[in-house]
């Protein structure tokens, strides 16, 4: 009796991929509508980075929480969970470090690209604010989807990563564009 069947993998995966496609479309729509606004900036270049780093932060936290749930180290509740707290703190710290680092790289790229000192600083500021706004979204959606799927008897490994990366894509696109255009005045 084979463990993996083509039919089963396809049938189980398609619905979640479809939902993720719908969420992703919303992100794409925001991007399409904002294309005019972000012309002449490097904001488009930031999109894969914000999505990718955000997705990885969520995936790593999600994978650790899934394992911890399976092993019984973490209970699916928010209070009095030391291991959960350590994991969340570690994710916040990682997030601050990585987003600051990439913001510094964007400062250099924008400066070399000819954005000037202030323009380069605005690019860096845009990226760092977007990253900091994204962090609570990443953590909340990861913890919520891991706990809820585990409680419902689903394998968090199959649910958390696709769902969280899609949610991040939407929020990343929206945060980044709103901030770049309105707040920082890029």
């Amino acid at each position, binding site marked *: 009796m*084979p*463990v*993996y069947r*083509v039919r089963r*993998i*396809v049938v189980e*995966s*398609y619905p*979640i991929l*479809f939902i*993720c*496609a*719908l*969420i*992703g*479309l919303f*992100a*794409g*729509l925001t*991007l*399409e509508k904002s*294309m005019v606004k972000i*012309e002449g900036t490097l904001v*488009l*270049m*930031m*999109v*894969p*980075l914000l*999505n*990718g*780093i955000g*997705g*990885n*932060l969520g*995936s*790593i936290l999600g*994978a*650790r929480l899934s*394992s911890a749930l399976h*092993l019984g*180290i973490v209970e699916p509740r928010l209070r009095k969970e030391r291991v959960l707290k*350590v*994991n969340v*703190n*570690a*994710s916040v*710290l*990682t997030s601050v*470090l*990585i987003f600051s*680092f990439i913001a510094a*790289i964007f400062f250099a790229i924008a400066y070399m690209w000819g954005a000037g000192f202030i323009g380069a600083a605005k690019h860096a500021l845009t990226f760092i604010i977007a990253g900091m706004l994204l962090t609570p979204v990443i953590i909340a959606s990861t913890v919520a989807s891991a706990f809820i799927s585990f409680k419902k008897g689903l394998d968090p*490994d199959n649910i958390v*990563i*696709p769902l969280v*990366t*899609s949610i991040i*894509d939407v929020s990343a*696109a929206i945060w980044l564009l709103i901030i770049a255009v309105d707040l920082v005045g890029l």
Partner: protein
Amino acid sequence: MVKEVNIRAIVVQGLSVLLLCAIIELGAGFTLKEMERRFALIPGLAIMTLPLLDLRGDINGALASRLGTALHTGVIEPKLKLTAELKANLVATLILSLIASATIGGLSWLTGVVMGLTVNILRLIGVAVMAGFISGLILAGLTILVAVFAYLHGWDPDNITSPMMATIGDFLMVICIYLAVLAVG
């Protein structure tokens, strides 16, 4: 064991993978920036790009996840031999790449129509399916290689394969979309 959770270890390990991924994502960002003018030429392309990138990571992330479990449980041996189990995973991934990419092409067309854009359904589905299938084929092979390689070196494929594949997937997908756009015109 996992009992010893310490922030330092999680942050150090996470940062090393993330830094590597960030550098690759910079390449993806650069390609996307280069594509900016094409976005204006093919309406609906900007709508489609994010869900396609997302799909790539999801399908290969799931493949990586299943391979990790299969290697740990011994269902798949760490050899590069096309066994029935490996074949089922591979075929399922390719079928999903095809139908899910086509779905995204169709949904993007519908979204474009609702928004009042002049969108060409064949062009959008053509770009989506071409980019989805080519990148799917290359990435499925790479995923198997990375998972087996990681396992043979005593690393946990669960920690390595998923983030690596999501990142390489983004980069490759942007390039495949670009190539598909050039091919479709």
